[in-house]
């Protein structure tokens, strides 16, 4: 249950997007990848998911070199949770989660009892059983995100990759989703997420990777990453970082507010 990225580089033609990235997410860890938009977070994720195969270097998931794996084997090894989205067709929540079992079903067949049971369990676990019959496009953004997590759970792998799980969610839903992620980590799931919120990163992560211009700016424990110097470098703005509650929480405040009030 370990994801190891060794010396991975990727370029679109001349443009270098990832430059010698090294990082490891061990079993039962939440690794947060931070950095401004367009620094290659998504590209790194696509490499890890096997969606981009032309990277240099090596990515190992559970000690298997993913370049040697087919689509079906990849889907058994790692599950992807995209940002909560609006698909073209409105599926029921139950059907949406059921789609995660496709890899276990023969191509000319439809999901059977075993798959339906998995869906029941996953819905229960995410506490969204009451939504089973609702249309996926008609529930809230937070609920949609939980549905997508449930869908990843029925894929029956312990390696999960989240693309900005809290993007477009209100405050309450952000915390709801993050605590679900945290409880999965506590059960031994290995989770990698991208995020834009340094405060959440500090509160929930076990390990942080800061990427800037396709390079590793820093990586390590959250307390060493969510600092004034690094945040300033990462986002190119003047930031104050305050520690609260015996450093259980760190707050990032734009320096402009501190200097001028509002």
């Amino acid at each position, binding site marked *: 249950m370990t994801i190891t990225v060794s010396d991975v580089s990727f370029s679109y033609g001349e443009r270098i997007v990832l430059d010698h990235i090294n990082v490891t997410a061990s079993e039962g860890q939440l690794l947060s990848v931070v950095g401004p938009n367009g620094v290659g977070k998504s590209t790194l994720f*696509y490499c890890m*998911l*096997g*969606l981009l195969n032309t990277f240099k270097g090596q990515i190992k998931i559970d000690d298997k070199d993913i370049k040697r794996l087919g*689509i*079906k084997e*990849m*889907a*058994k090894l*790692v*599950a*992807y949770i*995209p940002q909560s989205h609006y*698909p*073209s*067709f*409105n*599926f*029921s929540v139950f*059907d949406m989660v059921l*789609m*995660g079992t*496709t*890899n276990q*079903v023969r*191509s*000319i*067949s*439809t*999901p059977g009892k075993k798959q339906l049971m998995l869906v029941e369990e996953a819905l229960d676990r995410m506490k969204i059983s009451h939504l089973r*019959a*609702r*249309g996926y*496009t*008609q529930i809230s953004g937070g609920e949609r995100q939980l549905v997508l997590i449930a869908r990843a759970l029925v*894929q029956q792998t312990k390696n999960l990759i989240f693309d900005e799980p809290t993007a477009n969610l209100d405050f309450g839903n952000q915390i709801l989703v993050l605590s679900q992620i945290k409880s999965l980590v506590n059960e031994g799931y290995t989770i990698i997420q991208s995020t834009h919120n340094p405060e959440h990163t500090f509160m929930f992560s076990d390990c942080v990777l800061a990427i800037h211009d396709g390079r590793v700016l820093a990586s390590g424990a959250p307390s060493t990453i969510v600092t004034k110097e690094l945040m300033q470098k990462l986002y190119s703005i003047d930031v104050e970082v305050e520690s609260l509650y015996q450093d259980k929480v760190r707050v990032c405040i734009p320096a402009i507010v501190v200097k001028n009030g509002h």
Partner: protein
Amino acid sequence: MEKDKYQKSFPYTLILVILGIVLIAVVVFSFFLGRFPISPIELFSIVLSNIFPITQTWTDQMETVLYNIRLPRILLACLVGCCLSAAGASFQGIFQNPMAAPDILGATAGAAFGAALAILNDGNYLAISLSAFVFSLLTVSIVYFISGKARGSKILGLILSGIIIGSLFSAGTSYLKLVADPSDELPAITYWLMGSLSGATKSTVGMAAIPMTLGLIPMFLIRWRINVLTLGDQEARTMGISATRLRLFLIVCATLVTAASVSVSGMIGWVGLVIPHLARRLVGNNYKHLMPASMLLGATFLLIVDDVSRNLLQTEIPIGILTAFIGAPFFVYLITKKGEVY
């Protein structure tokens, strides 16, 4: 409390059974319709005489009408309706677009050109069908080839190539109409373009049925995976499905049944767009139920429309005109009706 649409609806399998029963009823009813009256008793006697020795109380003419005219026509109407709807439902999934229809990749435009070319060269019905079929497949192959070279989004590339090649073949058809003999060839082309099932004979039905079955069965069997395809290539891939391969496979199947339909029936619009939407209203968007529901509804719908087309007036009304007259207002109703947005 707001009631959930999904919860109060019937179990979907029951809806499918009801749709099947309705189709059978419409098929039986259609045997009685036509210029030449056949009573229910005569109909059942003729059918049962194949199994039991029954003294003949009917004329030979009745038997001929039943077996050589009505049976092939009813079968063809059902098959074409079934194929166009299944192809429509598949294309909507493949292109993640509820507005996709069987002619999205230029299959009908190619078929029209092929048919016009054959009519211009004094081809018989068989030659016209064959030419339409070949050109239909050719058009879609060209479209697929070009889209492979297109940069950017795969799906946009396919749709744009379909529009480009489709309009090119439409222009070709226009040219053929221009040079066609206005006394006999031009009306023949025009009539073919309006769509009609009047050419149905045992042999045409038999011939069309082969490619139709070859396309329909795999589309039915693989229907669950179309769900995953509607989520987009990347998501499908992370769930273990190669979107590119599955899409190509479905395009081949859907094109095969569309080409086979258009080649024997001419251009029949609207069915492939409206019927899957009606099916979505009844059983939801899960292709497990949507595909069979589209197939059954499509067969029933086209059979009813064809019954009207051959019985309403003294002369037969081209079925393509009728499907448009029914399809357009019905679609307006579907998109404005209150209820679940889908």
